[in-house]
């Protein structure tokens, strides 16, 4: 019987069927962070059970950490307590932890692949919806709640129902100035914020195959923003080269044999399939309060006829925008380059290359937050730190930062922020903050001009 890539990985991890839908699914790698794990560790304590398999668990502190003066104690007492509790729990349950100031610390979805922990054909979970990022390696990776975190700590398994399957094919060559972030924002705008709910998505086609591993992570990262349980891409020579460099393995040949078996068979059936052309994709920007409310950067906010629900009216009011308004040239206040979507070395390289020798506009405050200490070190080694700082960007220490308004980095009420993160929900970057999601390249162009800018026009004039 023909199988999809998803089927092949799923079937290898089913321990037992519970009923027609629910199965006990074995998890190869569990990532944890400070926000969604304390209640789960508490549960273990109350039940008097040990961690089932500590070798398959890795922890880091990322959501609450400040990105300035990381060597000092965290100022906010509640954030400090949560980060300290993670250390206490990891010590008690013997979990490997990359805590604050550890040279390996960083955003959980950046450090997993970096450490060679994320590898093809695995099942991976974390109490964080952007766990879908790891699907870039050909994994079944998805976000879970805290009760499920406790399930995994206690049994290395989660109870799940098998999702439906969707394939999204993107074919052809991308235009200059168009990046992986634009591909995924385009797809989400087409499918809508709930368009893939109940499904696991396989991304395929020559455009996807042409992307680097980091670009693939950006795509898979945002699968959840259209409601997908997760997204994955079949491993290929790029994947294997990346994994080999991070995970020296004596039995590489055997591993390689398994990795090479991970593809969707010809004629395998998907519940839904979409086809897109790379040439139709332009640099994207969001205008509303969910990631599905995106348009081409030179486009206009949809008409009243197309955008009339109570939710979308509230979104426009919140964003201070009106129907049929052009977004281009809208003055902005902040630029945030970071988050598990776009904080890897290639993102920083792209921004640095673009802003080299230029200055950001005087009305803009712009920060660059690397995804991990390793990314940060690499950036310094390549001299990117100086380029960015000379252009007026503030380079911070690693963490989730202004993606979610949980630490010190927040956008003030009413201010516009072009952000390379993944969510533009009301208040996401701080109460009243107005987020416009875009690619690192678009964000860099907006920072230089102090307004929403079509990076394609800038590239033409270079």
């Amino acid at each position, binding site marked *: 019987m023909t199988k999809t890539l998803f089927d092949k990985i799923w079937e290898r*991890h089913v321990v037992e069927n519970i*009923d*027609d*839908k*629910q199965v*006990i699914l*074995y998890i*190869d790698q569990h990532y944890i962070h400070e*926000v*969604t794990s304390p*209640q789960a560790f*508490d549960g273990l304590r109350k*039940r008097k059970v040990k961690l089932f398999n500590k070798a*398959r668990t890795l922890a880091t502190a990322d*959501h*609450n950490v400040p990105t300035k003066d990381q060597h000092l104690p965290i100022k*906010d007492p*509640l*954030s400090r307590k*949560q980060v300290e*509790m993670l250390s206490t729990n990891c010590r008690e349950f013997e979990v490997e932890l990359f805590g604050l100031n550890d040279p390996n610390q960083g955003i959980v979805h950046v450090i997993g692949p970096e450490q060679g922990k994320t*590898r*093809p054909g695995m099942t991976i979970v974390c*109490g*964080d*919806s952007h766990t879908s990022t790891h699907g870039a390696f050909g994994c079944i990776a*998805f*976000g*879970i*709640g*805290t*009760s*499920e975190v*406790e*399930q995994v700590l*206690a*049994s*290395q*398994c989660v109870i*799940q129902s098998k999702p439906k399957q969707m394939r999204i094919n993107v074919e052809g060559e991308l235009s200059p100035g168009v990046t992986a972030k634009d591909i995924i924002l385009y797809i989400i705008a087409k499918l809508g*914020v*709930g368009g893939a*709910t109940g499904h696991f998505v396989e991304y395929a086609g020559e455009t996807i195959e042409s992307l680097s591993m980091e670009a693939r992570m950006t795509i898979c990262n945002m699968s*959840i923003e259209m*409601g997908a*349980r997760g997204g994955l891409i079949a491993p290929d020579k790029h994947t294997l080269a990346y994994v080999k460099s991070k995970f020296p393995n004596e*039995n590489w040949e*055997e591993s390689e044999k*398994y990795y090479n078996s991970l593809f969707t068979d010809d004629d395998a059936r998907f519940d839904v399939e979409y086809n897109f052309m790379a040439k139709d994709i332009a640099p994207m920007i969001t205008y509303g309060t969910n990631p*599905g409310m995106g348009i081409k950067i030179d486009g206009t906010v949809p008409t009243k006829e197309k955008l009339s*629900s109570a*939710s979308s009216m*509230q979104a426009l009011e919140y964003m201070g925008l009106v129907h049929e308004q052009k977004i281009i040239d809208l003055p902005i206040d902040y630029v945030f380059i970071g988050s598990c979507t776009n904080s890897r070395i290639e993102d920083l390289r792209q921004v640095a290359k673009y802003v080299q020798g230029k200055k950001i506009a005087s009305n803009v405050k712009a920060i660059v937050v690397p995804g991990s200490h390793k990314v940060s070190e690499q950036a310094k080694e390549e001299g990117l730190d100086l380029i960015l700082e000379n252009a007026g960007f503030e380079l911070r220490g690693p963490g989730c930062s202004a993606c979610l*308004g*949980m630490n010190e980095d927040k956008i003030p009420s009413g201010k516009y922020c072009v952000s390379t993160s993944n*969510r533009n929900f*009301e*208040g*996401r970057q701080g109460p*009243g903050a107005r987020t416009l999601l875009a690619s690192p390249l678009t964000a860099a162009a907006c920072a230089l001009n102090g307004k929403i800018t079509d990076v394609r026009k800038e590239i033409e004039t270079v």
Partner: protein
Amino acid sequence: MRSQWKNYRRKKRNRDSMKFTQIKSTAVPLPMEDIDTDQIIPARFLKSTSREGFGENLFRDWRYHTENTQNPDFILNNENFSGSILVAGKNFGCGSSREHAAWAIKDYGFDVVISSFFADIFKNNALNNQLLPLTVSPYVLDQIFNAIEENTQTSFEINLEEQTLKWQNSSDIITFEIDPFKKHCIINGMDTIDFLISKRDAIKTFENEHVVY
């Protein structure tokens, strides 16, 4: 302001009393679509290390203006609406995996959320907390909103055993789907973690044979 909120909140229940088979209650309508978990409970309130007390900040930025004054236009601040059933537009609970969203809704006093579809992670989180995510068709959802609009005191009856929903002045009985295992867990107040702990031997055997490449 805070004391008023307490009036709406039901008494906290211990875990054993969370199980239920039938509910009869009025409902609170929130006819917005794509309500994300950042609205249900903003990230800045996720710093607690316990499961309790999140109801206080449920829909915080919709319930309160930025200067912390109550927003009288928000439905939870409207005395005409109360009950243990929340009715919301499609794609309820999209966004983050934070179980705090389910904890906040349950802690506030809701036992059921009705919508035409739920985000996957939220749905699992709700079920793991004896909060019933009840999916109805878009047509039925409209009917429910209309019924509440006509009479804010419309009483809804949910029978989990029978998987049925009906309400005052409605001739139809609506049936809904729920996975048998999840239904069993809610009706019996069963804990999925204890269930998995009971399977640890079988999982160990599986693990010993399973190669992670």
